[in-house]
């Protein structure tokens, strides 16, 4: 006996309406059950297209979150209109554990509390370097994912820019007994994560790395991990050229 198809009783017009409904539903809820940044600029994530550098006004509603490398950018005053939430030694897993003091407030608060105090339509994140020196890339990526899930939950209307950390010099990697592969894997994983979670990916790893996967020595500070001031200015220019116009 010929079996009736479950849609065979429906009129073509009803089928079309159903399909349109499903299409619209999938556009509004692109990945039900997964955490994604809701906001996308006029360029879809993850790769911002290179353009002329934006001015300081672009960063008036931006927060820069990160570790010592980000504090370096703050100290050099490279983005004078942005607000910074930085703490040395911070990593994706410790972003909700490290405590901050705000001027005029005796309480200790978390990074999330501090971000909330500032205009945060755009959030630039530079974290991971302090984890990769002792933790494999997979574990660091898992921590990063959890951190981003919380970020998106806390700031659903923000545009997120994840800055992939630069590598280390050959000497520093030898001291830490790790191989360049760890940073390469992290970069690949972070880019994939950015795609999945609708985040913008800014590749600082590629900006300063040599063909062998090590941080180029001309960019490295004396410890083989942090950047020289001149290289931080290159980083600044790169960020200014890789933003997205927000809606």
């Amino acid at each position, binding site marked *: 006996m010929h079996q009736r198809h479950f849609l065979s009783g429906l009129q073509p017009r009803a089928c079309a309406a159903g399909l349109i409904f499903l299409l619209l539903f999938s556009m509004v809820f692109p990945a039900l059950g997964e955490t994604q940044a809701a906001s996308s600029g006029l360029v879809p994530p993850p790769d911002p297209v290179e353009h002329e550098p934006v001015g300081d006004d672009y960063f008036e509603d931006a927060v820069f979150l990160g570790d010592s490398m980000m504090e370096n950018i703050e100290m050099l005053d490279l983005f004078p209109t942005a607000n910074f939430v930085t703490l040395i030694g911070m990593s994706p897993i410790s972003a909700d554990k490290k405590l901050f*003091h705000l001027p005029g407030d005796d309480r200790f608060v978390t990074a999330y509390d501090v971000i909330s105090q500032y205009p945060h339509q755009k959030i630039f994140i530079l974290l991971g370097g302090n984890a990769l020196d002792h933790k494999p890339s997979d574990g660091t990526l898992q921590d990063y994912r959890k951190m981003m899930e919380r970020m998106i939950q806390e700031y659903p209307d923000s545009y997120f820019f994840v800055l992939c950390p630069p590598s280390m010099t050959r000497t520093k990697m030898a001291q830490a007994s790790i191989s360049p592969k760890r940073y390469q894997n992290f970069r690949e994983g972070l880019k994939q994560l950015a795609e999945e979670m609708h985040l913008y990916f800014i590749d600082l790893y590629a900006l300063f790395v040599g063909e062998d996967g090590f941080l180029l020595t001309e960019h490295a500070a004396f410890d083989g991990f*942090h*950047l020289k001031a001149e290289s931080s200015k290159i980083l600044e220019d790169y960020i200014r050229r890789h933003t997205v116009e927000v809606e």
Partner: protein
Amino acid sequence: MKKCIVLLLALFLLTGCAAQEKTAALTASCQEIAEKVMAAAGFQELTAINEKYLEKHFLIRADDLEDWALYRDATRATPEMVLIAKVKSDADQAAVKKALNAYNSEQLTLYRDYQPDQAAKLERAKALQNGAYLALIVSPDADKTTAALGQGWRE
């Protein structure tokens, strides 16, 4: 008697000169003192830091300071820094000193976890005071920089 007068005159001139020197030293700018301190030990490259950073990270108001100079290792690979500040006469000097010590103590906690080999520099650092002047120096050689600070202050 003549000898006594000569001796008294010499003593008067010496103390007079010393007092004059001390007064001159107390008007030294924080920048000048900071430069003396920085030249005394092999610091990492230190960068001049702006007011916004001073207020946010040290939790002190620049308005409370008559003059100040802040330099630090901008990579943050080390906690090395030189802060010299002259507190205004109507400002709460004790509160500024307390804020500097609290900052140093927080940095020590962070560096014990982040770069334990650098923690000793912070353990040796504390806010030092000479009249209206305050200093917080995190140095690779505390003995040398404390001596240079003393010279800068003409103690």
